């Protein structure tokens, strides 16, 4: 691991901050919820529809 040549600029940090907050975390959140729903769907396909809640 080489040492960083220079500390990151403000533009770089802002770019990374916006990329993470606007794209990456929302995308991961959707992927997580989608996987959650998909898992239940597959479970109901094999175990039958859910009973009374």
């Amino acid at each position, binding site marked *: 691991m080489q040492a960083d040549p220079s*500390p*990151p600029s403000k533009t*770089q*940090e802002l*770019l*990374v901050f916006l990329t993470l907050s606007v794209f990456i975390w929302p995308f991961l959140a959707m992927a997580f919820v989608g996987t959650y729903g998909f898992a*239940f769907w597959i479970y*109901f396909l094999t175990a039958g529809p859910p*009973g009374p*809640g």
Partner: protein
Amino acid sequence: MSDAPKRPSLWARFRNNVLFRVALRPSTRFSLAFLTLGGFIAGVAFWGAFNTALEVANTEQFCITCHEMKDNVYQELQGTIHWTNRSGVRATCPDCHVPHQWTLKIARKMAASREVWGHLFGILNTREKFLDTRPELAAHEWARMSANHSQECRNCHSPQSMNLAKQSERAANIHKEQLLTGEKSCIDCHKGIAHKLPVNKADEVPAFDD
């Protein structure tokens, strides 16, 4: 060939990318207050957008954007008591066909990806194909509602609030014997009340056709 410098792997290049390294180290330019506020606002915006999208996808207007729904089941609903009645309360598609509980709703939304597939490939794109598939489609909904003891009916109707004295004697007796004992739930008897019943081809006797 052998003395050429080894090309770094894709992961190594990604890991050494300046922006990736910036992402994994403490910020040098922004305060924790700014970063947490930014994350907080982004979180509120995301949650609002997510729920808004979920609600939009849970409206009748959304359901009937597919002609399979609009030209078949939606038309049939319009002749029934769940469309017009003396009290002016009506059921829309998702009231009966999308579970209200969050996990089950998300599972149903994911299952709808199969309906998108069916729409794209025209599995039900004619009335004939729809009618041929209807026994299977209806069986899915009947099995689902029977398993959850007609939860979607009971979101509005409650056996405890039924005034048996206002029902016909026959209905009151059957409700008393089979519904109030928990032996049966709504869908086990009340099939085909919001859409037409599937036609079982095996039951059709050609000689009786006019």
